[in-house]
């Protein structure tokens, strides 16, 4: 923004600010006398004197307004809380002449191509995106959750259990971040509109075109945020393990499992994720019986979880001398690698059986081996994990433990989700059963997702790792469907 614009923003800042008083009340702690009497701020919003300066923007476009009081609270009594929410609903941020984001959506201004320099079109597109983002973030639920978390954070005995407290404050921080970001977007949109109106009033074509440009930029930026909002799940930002297992059918299906694993390796590399093979059991002739890779990077789990299920291949098998058509399956499981302190299961050493496998003979000084494969069995659940690709037994054991932890966490999360039926089955359930995608190489060529009906006619590109479209269409679909109910 030019300094010229800035000056104007400052000039009008007091009125802009007053429109956000509903947010600002969020940031008043209960110890603050002003927060005790909410009615004051509701009745006389324009006289409310805030504890911070007018809004300015940080690099990410999020208003600093909301950063002022990180530790916001909803007051200590339920009564206050309810009051607060009604406040927020009553006083939405708006432009100087009262236009709100909801109103922009309701206006249904035509959304034209980006190249058309029409501010209403941009504003309408942005408002739609914001609404979609809110929907994907499950905005109403998010607010309730945030309220609960803030309430818990206020409890004086919270830090008696530091692990629990850590979890609460992390989740609170992350939800807060999302809320601020969306509030920031709304605010930014309205500011731009205000600016355009101002420019028109004052007959300043430079300012107007600059503001329209800013709107356009925002429109593009918000489109990306729509995608990010798809990955708002608690563990979506984690790294993950992807496990592929060959179905029945011998060499043909082991070859297929190998192809599927290769597809994920290429996909992960394409996205810039780190890939390490943790465990691999090769087929005698081709492919793999099963394998596990670790995919390291932000949102690896968020994306890869869309791949869970059975993948079906139809082709003329190169392993069949009679050149018959075969159908085979490979099962894919994905588990998140939660950070220390956010595990859902505490593993008890005494519940573990640790075995060296593929070792024979007397061992010890008798043998020179470079293979120190280790398998760990969690006796109460029967869940196992193995690793043989590290160069020491100790490291193999550590890797296998990490896989085991991830599998146990996943199992526990699925159990909890089932109990609260909070998530759709497909997202958390690692059951091998449900077929999710079909890859046909013969008699025609096509890859089709059975959940979304998304399909492409070039299986080669898919097998080379171009699966983002499948993932996004599934995430969009399931997310938008889920939030409708």
């Amino acid at each position, binding site marked *: 923004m030019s300094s010229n614009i800035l000056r104007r923003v400052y000039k009008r800042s007091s009125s802009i600010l007053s429109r956000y008083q509903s947010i600002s009340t969020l940031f008043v702690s209960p110890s603050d006398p002003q927060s005790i009497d909410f009615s004051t701020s509701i009745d006389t919003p324009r006289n409310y004197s805030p504890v911070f300066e007018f809004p300015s923007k940080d690099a990410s476009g999020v208003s600093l307004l909301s950063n002022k009081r990180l530790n916001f609270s909803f007051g200590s009594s339920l009564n206050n809380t309810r009051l607060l929410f009604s406040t927020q609903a009553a006083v939405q941020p708006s432009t100087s002449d009262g236009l709100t984001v909801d109103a922009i959506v309701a206006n249904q201004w035509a959304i034209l191509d980006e190249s058309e320099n029409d501010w209403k079109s941009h504003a309408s597109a942005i408002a739609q995106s914001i609404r979609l983002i809110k929907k994907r973030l499950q905005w109403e639920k998010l607010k309730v959750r945030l309220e609960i978390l803030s309430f818990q954070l206020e409890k004086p005995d919270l830090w008696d259990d530091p692990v629990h407290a850590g979890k609460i404050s992390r989740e609170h921080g992350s939800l807060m971040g999302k809320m601020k970001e969306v509030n920031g977007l709304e605010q930014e949109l309205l500011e731009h509109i205000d600016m355009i109106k101002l420019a028109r009033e004052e007959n300043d074509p430079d300012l107007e075109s600059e503001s329209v440009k800013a709107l356009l930029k925002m429109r593009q930026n918000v489109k990306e945020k729509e995608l990010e909002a798809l990955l708002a799940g608690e563990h979506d930002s984690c790294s993950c393990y992807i496990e592929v297992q060959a179905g029945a059918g011998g060499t043909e299906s082991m070859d297929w499992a190998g192809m599927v694993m290769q597809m994920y390796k290429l996909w992960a*590399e394409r996205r810039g994720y780190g890939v390490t093979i943790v465990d691999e059991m*090769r087929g005698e002739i081709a492919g793999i019986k099963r394998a596990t890779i670790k995919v390291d990077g932000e949102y690896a789990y968020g994306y890869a979880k869309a791949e869970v299920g059975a993948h079906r291949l139809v082709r003329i098998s190169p392993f069949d001398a009679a050149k018959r058509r075969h159908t085979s399956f490979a099962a894919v499981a994905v588990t998140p690698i939660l950070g220390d302190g956010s595990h859902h299961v505490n593993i008890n050493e005494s519940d573990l059986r*640790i*075995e*060296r496998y593929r*070792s*024979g*003979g*007397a*061992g*010890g*000084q*008798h*043998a*020179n*081996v*470079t*293979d*120190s494969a*280790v398998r760990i069995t969690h006796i109460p659940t029967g869940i196992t994990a193995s690793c043989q*690709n*590290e*160069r*020491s*037994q*100790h*490291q193999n054991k550590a890797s296998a433990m990490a896989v085991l932890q991830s599998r146990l966490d996943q199992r526990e999360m699925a159990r909890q989700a089932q109990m609260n039926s909070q998530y759709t089955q497909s997202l958390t359930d690692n059951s091998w059963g449900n077929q999710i995608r079909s890859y046909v190489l013969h008699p025609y060529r096509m890859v089709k997702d059975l959940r979304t009906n998304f399909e492409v006619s070039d299986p080669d590109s898919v097998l080379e790792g171009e699966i983002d479209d499948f993932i996004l269409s599934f995430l969009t679909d399931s997310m938008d469907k889920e939030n409708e109910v």
Partner: protein
Amino acid sequence: MRTRKIKLMNLTSLARVSSLSTAFASRTLHRSITCRPISCSSVSHAPTSLKPKPPLFLRPLTFTATLSDLQKWQNWAKTLASSVGSSFTDLDNGPDSENLHRELNWLIEDALENPKSLLTLDDSKRDTVLQLRADLDELYSLWKQRIEKRKPFQYIVGCEHWRDLVLSVEEGVLIPRPETELIIDLVDDAIKQNQELKEGLWADLGTGSGAIAIGIGRILGDFGRVIATDLSPIAVQVASFNVNRYNLQDKISVKQGSWFDPLMEFEGRVAGIVSNPPYIPSGHIRGLQAEVGRHEPILALDGGEDGMSDLLHLCNGAALMLKPGGFFAFETNGEDQCLFLVDHMKTVHHNSFYNLKIIPDFAGIKRFVTGIRS
């Protein structure tokens, strides 16, 4: 056979010793210490050089090769590995093709600056020049030795990954075994039980590459110290090199000498004694897996007729050297040796030890004997 001719004890003589007192055992100890070096000198390898060769992964990137030449080598090496099939496994429980392929990847990992480049190659980059830590001829010769001479992979790359350590090894020094890693966990448990041990003096007898000593050195407290002994001058050199590499020279002193000789001054004051002494019965040496029998030092493997000579010597020494509450852990050849040792301790060193335990390795073989000095 180049095995030891002089056997100080065998099972029958020990059975006799069993009835004797600890005091006598300690006299036996002193006697054996004086005899032992003589018997060993007849088997020790002539040290080629006393300066340890740095492992491949630590050598400078002084060589280059084009991607396509390196690829040629890799394909040749793969073919050679594949040709092995399961023949070594069938012969003497040696590595199969799959093991060898994995080793080849690790060799590449150690020899190249950027090992990934070899995996993600496309034809347009054939002439790219890569930096290497060994020249291509050496890589050919190394892999040939791996397959044709059955030279252990760890001697090829000059290192062994052991626990979270990477230890330098070379011919003349035993390659630390995965089983032995557990000794560190046993010690860790012991010092958790008795915090005093954490700040005491520990001994790793027959330290070889220094593996156990370094593993322990890293879990002891600020005042804890380790004396690592070995009769082999190459082992002493290599262990010192490794100790320095992990910057533990102030905590661990490596001394050349037979078993307890270098620490006699600490009699009765040692907090912990650990050892993985030679325990293979002499008669089994001939049938060992080629990597072991043909390449590893016999001094590190041959435990006498029943494989127990050194273990028994160590047991007797532990009774003498440990302070009350002191901990010991010994690795053995398996269940028979474990049972014999425990029985020996209970009878010969009656009331000298308590909490005697036999602990299996991850393959389920009863591998370790541990206990505490009364």
